[in-house]
């Protein structure tokens, strides 16, 4: 296996981008990434996308995106793993380069959610249609059940959940590409409208449009393109039972734990080596469960860790410096690639007001459904 580096990034702002269609978002982010390194020729394209078919009626995104980039002819593959589609696309690109099959690979994540689709129903298609959705559960409802189980088992409180949203909005206010660049108070979170008890509107990531792109190449060639390559040290992917009812412990995200274990092992790092991380906070409770599954803290203690400020900028392990899905926005298929971009900016020292001083090793964790798939990447400055 060859070492693989990220040599360039491109990203649209995240938000309600009414002027841009699915293909516009992709091309904008891809051109930004390509032009930053002199528009080299591309050997392969991977496009992470959850549901172009349901959101805008468009499937077959591989050739569509290659064509609109002026690259018809290049191998192009659409990758789907619900909200983890972007992260899994990154893994596909990583493996392609590592295996020696391609040299320069463009990895994209893109989603156009604001185009008239019934977003609640589309997102629910990442859950089990026969045993979950049929009976009336929604996507926020599944995470609400995880939250209530976590509260019953560990004493996690609504204040703990609110602390996640407050912290991520504080970070996102410093991110020019974030959808919501405004801070919120715990009181605002805890009095926002109820979505699925105990989760309220300000515990939930928004409906967003956006695209994010990274370019990969073998590390040994990376300096042909950039002075600041970021090595992808390892990649781990895992699955868990699809339905929440089929998981022995609804408070523990097995797929995250397995994916992280694989990434830590093949990267030769431990959780305490990680200096900055982007994690999948589609709902506030998800961030708490993920921190526990990544072994950043003991099971049941993530709420306390968050309330103590340890996961904020300036804390022991800053989490979601980009604002996370909550504040930066969550165009589902784009999220995994956007997480990687935040870590690249942190490791390059280009994160501005959000910079974690001297960060050299970072992690990104992306998750599909209510936790049935998860992918973890570890990055390092070289």
């Amino acid at each position, binding site marked *: 296996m060859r070492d693989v580096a990220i040599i360039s990034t491109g990203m649209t702002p995240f938000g309600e981008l009414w002027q841009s269609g699915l293909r516009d978002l992709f091309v904008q982010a891809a051109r930004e990434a390509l032009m930053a390194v002199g528009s080299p020729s591309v050997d392969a394209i991977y496009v992470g996308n959850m549901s172009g078919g349901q959101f805008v009626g468009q499937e077959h995104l591989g050739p569509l995106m290659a064509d609109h980039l002026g690259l018809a002819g290049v191998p192009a593959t659409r990758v789907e793993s619900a909200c983890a589609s972007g992260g899994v696309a990154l893994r596909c690109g990583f493996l392609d380069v590592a295996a020696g099959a391609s040299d320069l690979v463009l990895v994209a994540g893109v989603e156009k959610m604001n185009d008239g689709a019934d977003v609640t129903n589309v997102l629910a298609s990442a859950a089990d249609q026969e045993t979950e959705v049929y009976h009336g559960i929604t996507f926020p409802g599944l995470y609400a059940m995880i939250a209530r189980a976590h509260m019953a088992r560990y004493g996690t409180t609504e204040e703990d959940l609110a602390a996640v949203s407050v912290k991520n909005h504080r970070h996102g206010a410093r991110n020019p590409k974030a959808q919501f660049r405004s801070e919120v108070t715990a009181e605002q979170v805890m009095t926002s409208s109820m979505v699925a*008890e105990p989760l309220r509107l300000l515990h939930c990531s928004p409906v967003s449009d956006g695209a994010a792109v990274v370019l990969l190449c073998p590390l040994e060639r990376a300096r042909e393109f950039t002075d600041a390559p970021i090595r992808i040290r390892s990649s781990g992917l895992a699955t868990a039972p699809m339905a929440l009812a089929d998981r022995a412990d609804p408070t523990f995200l097995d797929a995250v734990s397995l994916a992280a274990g694989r990434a830590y092992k093949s990267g030769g790092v431990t959780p305490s080596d990680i200096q900055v991380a982007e994690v999948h906070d589609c709902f506030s409770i998800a961030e708490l469960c993920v921190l526990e599954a990544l072994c950043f803290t003991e099971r049941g203690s993530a709420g306390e860790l968050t309330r103590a400020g340890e996961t904020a900028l300036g804390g022991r392990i800053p989490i979601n410096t980009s604002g996370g899905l909550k504040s930066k926005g969550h165009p589902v298929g784009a999220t995994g690639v956007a997480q990687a971009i935040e870590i690249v900016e942190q490791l390059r020292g280009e994160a501005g007001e959000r910079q974690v001083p001297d960060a050299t090793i970072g992690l990104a964790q992306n998750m599909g459904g209510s936790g049935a798939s998860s992918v973890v990447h570890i990055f390092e400055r070289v």
Partner: protein
Amino acid sequence: MPSPRYWREIPSRYRLEAAACRGCKRVIYPKRQVCPQCGGVEFEATRLAHRGRVVTSTVVHVAPTDLQMEAPYAMAVVETEEGVRLMVQVADCDPSEVLPGMEVTLEFRLIRKEDHGGILCYGHKAVPVE
């Protein structure tokens, strides 16, 4: 959604039919071709007891289109006496009273009317034990 899908799913939905793995004895609901615990492929049909306990729950306020008229409603993961867990709606009670540990029975009910075809969709809902 095409109607063959509904009749295909009737045994588990209407009769709470499950499958007991001959290899490891685990009861699987709905039935599957491969046991998720031991990989076994031989099963005996069995019916679930209509009784269980709430493992976790929520009250859905922002509901899917088909169920908007019913919100807010309680949903729960219920564990039956066989150790099987099902996702069900909890009916005939104040939704805010549905909390982990609550004892419930499972009753045959109308689940939803599907929008376009107007198909009546049945299944089981949980009802708190008095």
